[in-house]
């Protein structure tokens, strides 16, 4: 198992390196002269030259990448062209805000989806099962921005229960929690259908296993059979998907943060793209990729712990 873990750890290095190449290339895929694009069409030549020198664009590409990687490893992602602040300090707070939003969305979506999936599986082919699966399919097809806009319309404008947008402060304050509800609700709701469907099909499969029949034959009560024997095994694929869905959550966070003006990584990235602030664009995308790779790594390692049946060599 140790060999497996070490090998899995070693595998993330080339992936992250590859991601850094891709992020580095963003600036070089810009059609035309990136310095000119950033400065604008009417900028004087010395301003363009300044930007070119600041971004190191006057060096050979390999040298540029080497420098980019070396500074990134030291935690230096350059300076924002717009605010002149260090990219790492721009990203730091935004990253934590996104984590806050994503975890809140994750928790409530699990709390809703797993019970729905379990009940749908146990009461298979009942009206509840059909209704929940149809709702899941409908929910999967709704654009997240509309869900967010409708949440604002209903809960902020019509009912006045929650603020329209922004972050109210730290999570432990009332204002902080109050502001978190609508964005987290929006981001979480798009995860519920897939999770509920997966829990249902995974539990149905587990319920058909021999050990469940044995447990029933022993005379164990049905809730006990479901909870203790079937569900524990059924949740394994759910754990994987919970990890993989972080991709969707990070993507969804971009939209949610934009709608609710939540000061997170996604909103920072979109604003930076629209203002052509490339160092910030590169920084936000690199951090997202590294986060995502790390989460996938953790999910894989968690799998080893959760399922001793799997042999890793």
């Amino acid at each position, binding site marked *: 198992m140790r060999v497996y873990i070490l090998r899995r750890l070693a595998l993330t290095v*080339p*992936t*992250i390196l*590859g*991601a850094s*190449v*891709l*992020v580095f*290339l*963003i*600036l*070089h*895929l*810009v*059609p035309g002269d990136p310095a000119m*694009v950033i400065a604008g069409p009417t900028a004087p030549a010395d301003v363009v030259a300044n930007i070119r020198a600041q971004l190191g664009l006057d060096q050979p590409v390999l040298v540029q990448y080497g420098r980019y990687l070396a500074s990134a490893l030291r935690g230096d992602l350059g300076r924002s062209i717009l605010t002149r602040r260090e990219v790492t300090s721009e990203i730091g707070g935004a990253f934590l805000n996104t984590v806050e939003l994503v975890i809140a969305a994750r928790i409530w979506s699990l709390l809703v989806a797993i019970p729905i999936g379990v009940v749908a599986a146990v009461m298979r082919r009942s009206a509840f099962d059909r209704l929940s699966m149809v709702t899941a*399919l*409908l929910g*999967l*097809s*709704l*654009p*997240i*921005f*509309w869900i967010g*806009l*409708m949440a*604002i*319309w209903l809960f902020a*404008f019509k009912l006045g229960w929650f603020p329209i947008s922004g972050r109210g402060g730290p999570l432990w304050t009332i204002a902080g929690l109050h502001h978190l509800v609508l964005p987290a609700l929006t981001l979480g709701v798009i995860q519920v259908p897939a999770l509920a469907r997966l829990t249902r*099909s995974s539990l*149905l499969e587990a319920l058909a296993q021999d050990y469940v029949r044995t447990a029933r034959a022993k005379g164990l009560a049905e809730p006990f059979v479901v909870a203790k024997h079937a569900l524990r095994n059924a949740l394994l694929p759910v754990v994987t998907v919970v990890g993989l869905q*972080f*991709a*969707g959550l*990070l*993507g*969804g966070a*971009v*939209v949610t943060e*934009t*709608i609710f003006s939540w000061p997170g990584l996604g909103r920072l*990235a*979109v604003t*930076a*793209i*629209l203002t052509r602030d*490339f160092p910030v*664009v590169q920084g936000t*995308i690199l951090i*997202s*990729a590294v986060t*995502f*790779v790390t989460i996938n790594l953790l999910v894989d390692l968690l799998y080893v712990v959760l399922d001793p049946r799997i042999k890793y060599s």
Partner: protein
Amino acid sequence: MADGSLPAASGPPRADAWRRLRRDGTSMAGAGCLLALVLVACLAPVLAPYDPIKVAMRERLQGPSARHLLGTDQFGRDILSRIMYGARISLAVGLIAVGIGLGVGATLGLVAGFSRRLDYPIVALMDVLLSFPQILLAIAIVAALGPGIFNAMIAVGIGAVPGFTRLARSSMLSIRERDYVESARALGATSARIVARHVLPNALAPLIVVATLSLAGAILAAAILSFLGLGAQPPMAEWGAMAADGRGFIAQHPHIATFPSLAIFVVVLASNLLGDGLRDALDPRLDE
């Protein structure tokens, strides 16, 4: 069999699959819906009651009425007409993006599965692409190419490549070991013939299913990019961009954002239903 070919085996015969698909009411409803949208997209200049980009400030911010069935937006443009024209953009963007993903992805996957030398570099590249959440990868590409509907289409297409590559590669790896491929090889068939005659037909079914299901994802992703201001630019009638227009008027005029969003919902749902139906029809083992 003298030419070294064997009947393409495994999987249910096509006629069976077609019959199963036709009997599946929900997926036929999905197909019907998509067909209707294609018609609306093609006939938009005839069907649309108004010019989709003509500003009419006197008519602005009207709710649904007999004159404007779905109301007007903040520039007085008829929302129904814009949705009809928007169908052209959304369908084209979805189809082209999936086309890029399928074309590039399947080719890379088949090459990776067939050539031991190219397998590792291709898989490594895909792992790197997969290290970005799909929408972020698309955003990264738009960041480089610049905002615009054409670039958004390329970005969504590239984002779909890794999925198709993985699927085509794994199909290739499993089909390569089948007895009928072995027999064809023993009979002297060339690699190209084996791929064209035995591997592709058998790898096609899962690729078609995933392509149909990806259509929904691609349309949604392109709409999201436009909503964020990174895809279609004003005054283009694109559903995601139209929903973004409605954002500032959500308190008093929620219909501006709602109708284009519902159009996205219908086309995504229809593609999902058709994709699910195709999956069940082509591979009954996957049912449940």
